[in-house]
């Protein structure tokens, strides 16, 4: 396979890499679980890797077809030795040597401990994929349920030889159709293929599952989060969403009477509410859009967090779009810490507060107080970073804004990813605005006093005229 590739340094490295890799490691068993319950595909693969080569190995390569790699939102690898979790990491950070020929993307995973020859280790790979479920048919009426198609390789895609493998699809409900293989079993909503024995590297045979899935297919095409820090003790968060129902499009219009008369049968794939989990101690919550407040929402709070149940202005059917924004305030001391160097450290959780939503493009704007200096950002995943200025109430030099941008964000990002922002802020600036206001009002009163004491020129002349007239 490699001999057909053009000669270049990268490819050369790849050749060396994959050839050495192949010669040494073997996957003794792999079980792949594909969870198709929501519109986000979550794949867990339990691998057992055996080192058969003469040397210790420190790197393992994961391979994904480009179609999946393009939509790979996040990945988590857990390395087990004798059943114990040794180390977990996010290989998405690492470089991606890419072979154009084979339509594959490789993710080298540096093992935390060298795998000695003849030893076996466990490797759990957790992958979150988006945009892989395609509705079929593409348009449905209000009365129909939504059917989705998922296509995958029945064999585990890997540059290594695999001795024993199986794949399991977990489905939310009825199955319309699926690829027939000799080794397969359908138990309730679990479709299992395998075990397949002794497959060479990069074995491929397509498997297609066509199934019913009416879960809310919420995709935020655009999500802007603005976090405004006030050193008076408040964090104001504003989240703007543009949400699209990414499922099968609605055909023949929307009929309210059907929707009202039989909610379970009609518009099964539509969704009317979205639930946002806000951090604990959130207060002053609002929910509105460009044309005003949306009066239908419920807020429940407990020590674990605050739950905002938002009823959208209209039920969302396939292909429909809606945009709105929510906002809330948080106490500052939960998010701001002081580092030893006198820096302020702001610890924010990346990701959307709405449950089970795919964000195609997320922009986080952290507005730091006026006068902040030496700003630096540390995040555990690659983002586009930039800085700008924002002018808000009574600002003179503007507030520095740290802008972070990331594509393809899934709920998992919220769970694992934190962003740290370091900056310096002198608390004396807190008084600046208050002093400005005091000065302004003082000047106003001063002007009033001056005005009251000044003799107006007009009245003077008129009195002068009266006097002169009197003399005449």
């Amino acid at each position, binding site marked *: 396979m490699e001999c057909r590739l053009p000669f270049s340094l990268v490819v050369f490295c790849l050749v060396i890499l994959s050839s050495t890799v192949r010669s040494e490691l073997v996957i003794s068993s792999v079980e792949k679980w594909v969870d198709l319950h929501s519109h986000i595909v979550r794949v867990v693969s339990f691998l057992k890797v055996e080192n058969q080569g003469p040397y210790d190995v420190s790197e393992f390569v994961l391979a994904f077809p480009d179609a999946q790699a393009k939509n790979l939102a996040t990945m988590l690898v857990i390395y087990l030795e004798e059943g114990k979790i040794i180390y977990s990491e996010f290989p998405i950070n690492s470089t991606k040597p890419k072979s154009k020929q084979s339509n594959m993307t490789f993710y080298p995973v540096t093992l935390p401990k060298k795998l000695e020859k003849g030893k076996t280790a466990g490797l759990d790979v957790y992958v979150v994929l988006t945009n892989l479920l395609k509705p079929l048919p593409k348009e449905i009426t209000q009365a129909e349920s939504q059917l989705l198609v998922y296509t995958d390789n029945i064999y585990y895609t890997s540059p290594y030889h695999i001795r024993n493998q199986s794949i399991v699809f977990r489905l939310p409900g009825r199955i319309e159709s699926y690829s027939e293989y000799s080794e397969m079993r359908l138990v309730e909503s679990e479709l299992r293929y395998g075990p397949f024995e002794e497959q060479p590297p990069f074995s491929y045979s397509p498997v297609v599952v066509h199934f019913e899935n009416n879960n809310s297919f919420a995709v935020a095409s655009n999500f802007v989060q603005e976090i405004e820090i006030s050193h008076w003790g408040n964090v104001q968060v504003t989240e703007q969403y543009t949400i699209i129902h990414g499922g099968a499009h609605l055909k*023949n*219009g*929307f*009929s*309210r*009477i059907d929707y009202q*008369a039989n909610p379970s049968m009609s518009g099964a794939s539509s969704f009317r509410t979205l639930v946002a989990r806000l951090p604990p101690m959130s207060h002053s919550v609002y929910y509105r*859009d*460009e*044309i*005003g*407040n*949306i*009066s*239908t929402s419920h807020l429940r709070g407990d020590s674990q967090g605050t739950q905002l149940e938002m009823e959208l*202005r*209209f039920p969302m059917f396939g292909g*429909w*779009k*809606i*945009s709105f924004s929510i906002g809330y305030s948080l106490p500052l001391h939960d998010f701001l810490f002081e580092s030893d160097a006198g820096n302020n450290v702001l610890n924010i959780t990346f990701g959307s507060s709405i449950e089970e939503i795919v964000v195609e493009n997320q922009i986080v704007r952290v507005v730091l107080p006026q006068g902040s200096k030496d700003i630096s950002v540390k995040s555990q995943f690659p983002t586009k970073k930039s800085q700008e200025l924002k*002018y*808000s*109430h*009574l*600002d*003179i030099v503007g507030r520095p804004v740290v802008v972070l941008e990331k594509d393809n964000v899934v709920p998992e990002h919220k769970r694992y990813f934190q962003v740290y922002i370091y900056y310096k802020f002198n608390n004396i600036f807190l008084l600046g605005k208050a002093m400005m206001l005091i000065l302004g009002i003082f000047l106003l009163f001063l002007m009033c006093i001056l005005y009251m004491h000044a003799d107006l020129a007009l009245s003077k002349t008129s009195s002068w005229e009266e006097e002169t007239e009197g003399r005449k």
Partner: protein
Amino acid sequence: MGATSNASPAPLNSALSSFPSLKALKFTTKQQELLIRVSALALIYVLAFVVRLFSVLRYESMIHEFDPYFNYRTTLFLTKNGFSEFWNWFDSESWYPLGRIIGGTLYPGLMVTAALIHRILHFFSFAVHIREVCVLTAPFFASNTTLVAYFFGKEIWDSGAGLVAAALIAICPGYISRSVAGSYDNEGVAIFALLLTFYLFVKAVNTGSLAWSLASAFGYFYMVSAWGGYVFIINLVPLYVLVLLVTGRYSMRLYVAYNCMYVVGMLLAMQIRFVGFQHVQSGEHMAAMGVFFLLQVFYFLDWVKYILNDIKLFHSFLRITLTCAITVGVLALSIGTASGYISPWTGRFYSLLDPTYAKDHIPIIASVSEHQPTAWSSFMFDFHILLFLFPAGLYFCFKRLSDATIFVVMYGLTSMYFAGVMVRLILVAAPAMCLVSSIAVSATVKNLSSLVRAKSKSPQGSGKPLSGSKAAAKASADQSLPFQKNGAIALLLGALYLLCRYAIHCTWVTSEAYSSPSIVLAARGHGGGRVIFDDYREAYYWLRQNTPPDAKVMSWWDYGYQITAMGNRTVIVDNNTWNNTHIATVGRAMSSYEHEAYEIMLSLDVNYVLVVFGGVTGYSSDDINKFLWMVRIGGGVFPVIKEPDYLVNGEFRVDKGAAPKMLNCLMYKLCYYRFGEMTTEYGKPPGYDRVRGVEIGNKDIKLEYLEEAFTTSNWIVRIYKVKPPKNRW
């Protein structure tokens, strides 16, 4: 006011002696009066603003009703794109396919004001959104109006009357109805401008000062830029001048004031594109010009009289000049009118002079609810005690007749007439009512309190003067005029009671009747809780999000502004009813059979049809109730549509006994599509219309050329998609 001037300095001194530092702050009576006056005025200023915030508290900071949405949209455009762009804006989103030249067809005063406030706030780095500015513009100007009312009252009577006028106008329901927070309409700033112009003009007449009359010209300019109601000023002021001339009150002051105000005001007003040359070309403005020339003739005659010194000669000269002047004037007017240089009066103006005119000739004016003649009850509702105080104020005005009081009497009487002709003009009458009433209140209270005070100077007056009527009666028993003090106190208490009632009434009216945005509807639920119907915004937001950006929406013109502002989609007709034929076309489409309507809709490139239907919720101002106006307006241009076809024995019905054309016209079909399957009320058959209180007549409605695209959760707004034409082969 009276009590303060009577306060003896001795107890004040003793009270202050405990605070040595405050001793230096000992006020003279005059200073005390000033302090109380200023603080009262400040409180009134705040009150006028605060009382208008009911709608924000009850609902939210939002724009109300219909026209304000257009104003909001244009203001948004102005702040985004600047004045030059705004002035040259051709809006292709309304009146499709004609479009509308926005700069030339609107009064920009309101938008420019809001944009200016927005800019000033941003200059002082208050980062407020333009919507908040727009919502609070009307209350802010209402507050300013109270200040103008104070100065006006001071000018025509005294500062006491000014204070009362300010207090009355701050909470007058007739004014509040158009100036609550969110009611971002021209009237909000126009009443301020109107009163300011009048005040400055009266001031100019009183002083004869060029500066004041120039100021009033600028006030007039602001009024012209803000509202079409400026026509009232340009007719009232000449009328006032004429009355002064007739009553022999002509003076140099008047001459200076009117000439300067008219000439400069006219030139300034011509800068507004929507007004243009109307001041010299339109019949409505001719009275002002006539009076202007009359004043010149008058001045000329005065001068000749001074030169001639011969009464006989002067009389003959007078006769010749007058005949000449009148002939020339009449000739100019008739030639101007005949040649079309001077345009005749508009329909709206006619309908003001003759209340029945619109009903017979212009259905589009008559169809607007705020153009209806005013009911007696709404006078009571909007003016309350002012109705009784107004005649009393007139009495006081006549008793102390001056140039200023003549003006306010004329303003009061004419505006009362117009208020009777059209509901919305109650607004114009409100300041006049408040001013005249304030004179009544102030004069009465002043007289009475001076009576009471005169008595309290008697030896027994050491007790509590207002503690009880019995003690007071005993005290006054030995007076020469028995019960005088008693009666005065009783009358004072009565006045106090009346004013309290007024305040209570105004607050109640404001909170209950005038603070509803009418975009969001609220009703009481079964449990007594508040139920919100947010269907309008649901539908407009759906249009905004889920229709192609270039989609054309056909609806009755009432909803045009809202669809363009909130739905951001092109409409066929909107609330700027400038093209009657276009509206009639929509009316015709709505009242035709579906296949006929389809032809019309295709010719207008309509993609969606929006109707408002209240049959499920009982919301009575829906399209079925407005339907007869569509038929009338449509029939006025297209004789194919005949009103009797939709009526049964002159009665408008939607049940089984309805006219067949009614049961199959587009509007009926769109409103009642699949309504026959719906049970609205327990114990009633399906398809029971809760507004009309009947079971609908046509339950089996099939749509051939349209399909239901969206219906809001309470069915108030229904949107249909027009299917593309079928292939011919």
